[in-house]
């Protein structure tokens, strides 16, 4: 498909497990973003990549969260030693250009993570 895809769509983890969430952006898109959306809330910024460079990781809530985009396309968000407060929908978005005030971000469907 032509849109942003994410996998898995649903993930259930036991507290303390590590998880890896994958994002396939739209082909050719330079910018990639990760957001966290708690139930009933708006998304909150986690991190931003321009190609393979992680330019902003100020939104990552702790050092248990790690993101990478090694070849400037697919990105993986990894959460180590998951905790119940990590339960949320994790959204990935991509945009064509390096960024601008009118840039359009295209969102994937998200991965719903539930930590038991």
């Amino acid at each position: 498909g032509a849109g942003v895809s994410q996998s898995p769509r649903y993930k259930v983890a036991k507290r303390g497990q590590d998880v890896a969430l994958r994002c396939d952006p739209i082909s050719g898109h330079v910018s990639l973003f990760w957001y966290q959306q708690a139930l009933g809330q708006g998304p909150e910024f986690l991190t931003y990549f321009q190609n393979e460079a992680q330019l902003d990781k100020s939104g990552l809530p702790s050092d248990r969260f790690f993101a990478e985009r090694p070849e400037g396309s697919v990105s993986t968000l990894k959460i180590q030693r998951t905790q119940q407060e990590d339960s949320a929908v994790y959204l990935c978005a991509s945009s064509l250009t390096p960024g601008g005030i009118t840039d359009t971000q295209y969102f994937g469907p998200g991965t719903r993570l539930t930590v038991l």
Partner: protein
Amino acid sequence: TQLLEQSPQFLSIQEGENLTVYCNSSSVFSSLQWYRQEPGEGPVLLVTVVTGGEVKKLKRLTFQFGDARKDSSLHITAAQPGDTGLYLCAGVLGGSRLTFGEGTQLTVNP
């Protein structure tokens, strides 16, 4: 404290009614965007406003950016059940990251 305050948080109306959703902040934004999100999907961009005082129309939806670029509103005329969803405003302060409001959950009853 939320940087962008949306109101109301929940809105349930009958088909054919008009409604307005507000997005307010004490910060000045380079641009402001409105998104609509349906269950199990990511947000979809509806409009971007850039200039203070700007008004944009998208069929029955009217978007306005405040003169000082700190607030915005979304007005829907003659709402339809297909308008049901979570409406999110998002501002760009600098760079590319979006700062979202908490969202307004709209339900339009037939």
